[in-house]
């Protein structure tokens, strides 16, 4: 038998329950996160129109750069202000 040392981070992620899927977007606040890729705004503008048409309220957010993860504060802001979020990857 050979014994080796585990090279991994040995994480055991917590399982968290997802928020239940909303039956309707009517009256809900939906966050739109622009990751700052060129023309992401074109896509999100159209999505915003559609969502408002479905009766949703829309909050717009923007990452400082697509090349880095969203700052913790921004993630917290979205989580506390929105019922749902759409993140756009666009070029």
């Amino acid at each position, binding site marked *: 038998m050979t014994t*080796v040392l585990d*090279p991994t*981070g*040995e994480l055991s992620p917590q399982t968290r329950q997802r928020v239940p899927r909303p039956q309707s977007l009517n009256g809900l606040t939906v966050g739109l996160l622009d990751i*700052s890729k060129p023309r992401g705004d074109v896509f999100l503008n159209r999505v915003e129109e559609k969502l408002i048409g479905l009766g949703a309220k829309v909050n717009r957010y923007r990452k400082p*750069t697509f*090349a880095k993860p969203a700052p913790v504060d921004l993630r917290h802001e979205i989580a506390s202000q929105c019922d749902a979020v759409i993140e756009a990857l666009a070029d």
Partner: protein
Amino acid sequence: MTESSPGATAAPPLPDGLVVVVKRDCPTCVLVASVLSDLAHRSNATVITQDDPSFPTSADWVVHDAELELSWHHDIETVPTLLKVTNGQPTERIVGWNRGEWETFTGLDNLGLDLPDWRPGCGSLSVDPTISDQLAVKFSGSVMKSRRVEIAALEDVSESMYDRGWSDGMPLVPPTEARVMRMLAGTTRSPDDLVALVPPDLVECTVEKVAVNAVMAGCRPDYLPVVIAALEAACTDEFNMHGLLATTMPVGPIIIVNGPIRQRIGMNSGINVLGQGNRANSTIGRAVQLVIRNVGGGRPGGVDRATHGSPAKYGLCFPEDEEGSPWDSLAESRGFTNGESTVTLFPGESPRIIVDQISRSPESLTRHLALALRSNISPKLAMMFDSILVLSPEHMARYRDAGWDRQRFDQEIGEMLNLPGDELVRGAGGIEEGLPEMFAGNPVPKFRPGGLLVVHAGGGAGLFSSIIAGWVNGNTGTDPVTREIKP
């Protein structure tokens, strides 16, 4: 190691008085068997036998060091070793058989009169290379915290590591406790010291975890400080390893080593410098990438979204040929002294060649290099991407002969890389990709200030240089980072 290791088992006391450590599998020990019982009877000596418990005889003055714990803790390297012990600790020792020495040491005369005057000893079982690692693990008190993974005797160790997803695709060296312990001897840092928060999972990575991955990558212990420094540099905000990993571009952390450590660990800055064949060049970058894979959780298809990737992503690491260069080194140009060993991390793709076998003037060669660099990433894009230029010795000779220093070169090539904006904007040349229209009508520098990193390396023959292009620079991407390598 025994004293400094917090989990070390305490050294068991030896019997006071004269002690002789022996083994039967040693002709000198067998030769002096009669002297051993003579010492026991005349001087109450104790004989500690390493292998056969009835050697030299079965008696109450013979102690069997079955686990080799006494031998290991008291640093017995040769048998026979004759010791004087006070309060359980040896105060003096001699090794091998030498009648005169033994008589002086013991204060007894006429020892082994029928024996030859002198015979060298043999190696102690406790330093036998086939078991010394296990003894060190057993008695030094391992402070390693990583989970122990047992691989069954009928399992293939190599296959089992592949199955666990630890490999970058190439074979791994099994990270046994003994190997990791040897690796840890390569640094003065404690195994539980935090090195970095490794992306993408932002996991706290200790020196020990770096060592485990460095073993797997094939590193020698003396490379470990380089791996640690490179990982620290990679996990800074400026270097943005998360973005580099996640990008669809084919880039990885390229490591350039400067300073005295290059020679100390035997790196290759000459023939085939960017290729295979040198252990340090080949394994240091790989170790960093294995840490990002295994500790950080960054894997192709997961957070690593590279469209093509590149061979550089296995881990490309190379030293600068400072001795052969008339210029200050890359690290010196970035504010370090030539006595300091450093790593400079650059977010780069695989190298490609620029051939120029005709230019004899520095102006011609520079113009040609500039033309090649212009196509980095895209001939229609500028300023957003840095680059490394690896000048070969034969190309560097043009600058040496002409008396150009690094500043002169940077200035001249900078001017040649001031590109007409009209040729770069979207639509120019019938190509839709390009810079926004606002750049039309003005010169645009291909590289931002400091965005071209020039190093000298390669074999003595070949009128070529090599180019390593980078990904997005600055706040939106990565800035190259230079860091001192500390022991």
